[in-house]
């Protein structure tokens, strides 16, 4: 099959300039990497706007963008739920209520918090599952990137995999988390500048937003109106959307996934750390502009997805086909650079998170305890090499067994869903005991797996796979919540003195609050209000 898109010298120049800047930024950060905290947490020195944009970009990977454009072509405006319901409340909650315990307790990782609040076993369960999950995900996205570049541009699979691996290796090895974060901020600007031309041209062709609304079928045009039953394009009812997506999955991801939380921990002070997710929430609300509009435009202008579309139409190719449809060389190079940037920074994000968890929570806890900081810094740097090597290996394994990708994502979903219950009880109920936390988490994971087996066996039925996924999360979360409380009632309580700084009510309020206009609570409230207004407008 010939490649979909042909690039010329100008396009390659644009791609090359980006790669050079990335490597230069990594190189110029090299001199700062003197301690473990420099490498793993940027020396806790970055301002809020940088960590905020990085917080958003860490999640705005290329697969996410391509997938959300595909979702918009399939489900219409309801895709905004992944943003306005499924992200904003959790981001604000993290900043306003949870960050004081993460940043205030000076933990370096999310599992380390679990160790302080619960016990070693709970930390181990979380650290090991997260480390394996992150490094494999990095391999999966590496493979997905190489496959896309092969289909789109005709680049060789091995060439793309090795090239991306070497670039990411260079800049993470030199600059650690700072490199990752700075490149994520650059990516943030590139993704907007690269994709907005498609939005403009698309809207122009279909006659503006009004034209878009007039030409599409009614159920595709509302976010909430048809959620009363699961008889809507998503196949999920309002309870599934609000509880499953908006509460369990969203809070589980945004508040406990170290990949994003690590960015906030790199902030220079508590107020910046709390502002990080809140600053990120504002551009997050606008992301539907660059994913939902192209998805809807694709339905109208691309014959592949028109009225006569085959049921097998591959919506994942919508964004690429739109690029081909609208962008002349030059802008095409910019759009491809934006995708490449989000692929690479996604991989770098996974690798830096893996590094940190491996070095502090696994190597420094179970393998070589109590060594010098310089020793761990060195281990962290070389873990970068090993982490990337494992990613490359995974990419090749996935290439031979494409089904593995689905299985891995499935297993990861078992681990993620219940975690938020463990954190919620840990941070806000001082009665949760060490073994309560551990057994709650374990039973939650088992519940997710059990639910999946029953669904596959046909014992449980839902309107769509998405509904099954949302309800699985709800069950897993509830099981974790109930079991943690039940076990806590029968096991030994922790001494409240040990929990100071870790639990609400046992932690001193931050003394010097920022001025009112710099306060997380003020901006968080504003973010929620704007999100509610957006939901009402697109009802």
């Amino acid at each position, binding site marked *: 099959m010939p490649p979909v898109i042909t690039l010329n010298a100008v396009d390659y120049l644009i791609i090359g300039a980006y790669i050079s*800047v990335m490597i230069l930024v990594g190189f110029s950060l090299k001199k700062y990497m003197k301690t473990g905290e420099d490498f793993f947490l940027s020396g806790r020195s970055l301002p809020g706007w940088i960590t905020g944009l990085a917080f958003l970009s860490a999640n705005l990977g290329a697969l996410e963008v391509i997938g959300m454009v595909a979702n918009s072509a399939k489900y219409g405006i309801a895709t905004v739920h992944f943003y306005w319901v499924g992200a904003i409340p959790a981001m604000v909650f993290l900043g306003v209520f949870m960050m004081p315990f993460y940043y205030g307790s000076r933990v370096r990782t999310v599992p380390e918090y679990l160790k302080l609040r619960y016990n070693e076993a709970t930390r181990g369960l979380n650290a090991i599952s997260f480390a394996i999950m992150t490094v494999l995900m990095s391999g999966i996205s590496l493979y997905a990137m190489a496959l896309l570049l092969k289909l789109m541009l005709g680049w060789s699979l091995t060439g793309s995999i090795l090239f991306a691996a070497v670039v990411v290796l260079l800049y993470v090895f030199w600059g650690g988390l*700072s490199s990752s974060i*700075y490149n994520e901020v650059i990516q943030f600007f590139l993704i907007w500048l690269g994709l907005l*031309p498609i939005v403009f041209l698309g809207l122009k062709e279909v006659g503006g937003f009004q034209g878009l609304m007039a030409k599409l079928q009614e159920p595709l045009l509302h976010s909430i109106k048809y959620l009363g039953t699961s008889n809507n394009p998503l196949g999920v009812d309002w309870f599934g959307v609000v509880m499953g997506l908006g509460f369990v999955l969203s809070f589980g991801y945004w508040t406990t996934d170290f990949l994003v939380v690590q960015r906030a921990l790199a902030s220079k002070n*508590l107020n910046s750390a709390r502002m990080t997710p809140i600053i990120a929430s504002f551009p997050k609300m606008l992301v539907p502009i660059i994913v939902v509009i192209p998805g809807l435009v694709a339905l109208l202008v691309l014959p592949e997805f028109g009225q006569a579309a085959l049921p097998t139409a591959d919506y994942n190719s919508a964004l690429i086909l739109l690029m081909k449809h609208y962008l002349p060389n030059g802008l095409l190079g910019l759009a491809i650079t934006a995708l490449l940037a989000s692929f690479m920074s996604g991989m770098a994000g996974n690798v830096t998170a893996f590094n940190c968890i491996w070095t502090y929570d696994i190597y420094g806890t179970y393998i070589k305890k109590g060594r010098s900081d310089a020793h761990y810094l060195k281990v962290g740097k070389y873990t970068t090499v090993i982490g990337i090597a494992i990613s490359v290996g995974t990419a090749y394994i996935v290439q031979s067994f494409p089904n593995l990708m689905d299985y891995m994502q499935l297993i990861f979903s078992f681990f993620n869903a219940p975690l938020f219950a463990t954190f919620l009880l840990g941070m806000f109920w001082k009665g949760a005991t060490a073994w309560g936390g551990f057994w709650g988490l374990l039973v939650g994971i088992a519940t997710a797996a059990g639910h999946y087996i029953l669904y596959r066996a046909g014992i449980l039925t839902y309107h769509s796979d998405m509904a099954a996924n949302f309800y699985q999360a709800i069950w897993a979360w509830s099981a974790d919540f109930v079991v943690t409380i039940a076990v806590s009632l029968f096991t030994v309580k922790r001494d409240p003195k040990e929990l100071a700084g870790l639990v609400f009510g046992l932690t001193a309020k931050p003394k010097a609050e920022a001025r009112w206009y710099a306060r997380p609570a003020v901006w968080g409230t504003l973010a929620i209000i704007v999100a509610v207004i957006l939901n009402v407008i697109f009802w």
Partner: protein
Amino acid sequence: MNDKIETGEQKTGMSQGHVLDLKLPIGWLLSAYGALLTVYGLTTKKEMYAISLGINLNLIWGVLMLAIGGGFLLAAFLKRNKKAG
């Protein structure tokens, strides 16, 4: 690169912040892209823009990116001057 030491009131323990002034690389990259797209837009024929609905979007976007990139560079320059002065 413009390295500076952050003197925030709650600086904690670290000798030095990792403050590479990020406005500079962003500014340079976007300005370079802007200049390249502008020149390319000026030197390419109209036929090439049939797919972009007849609009020479390379030129328009190039000028826009030059303005954004220039804005970042200007902000970095003003900040540096303020510190020096």
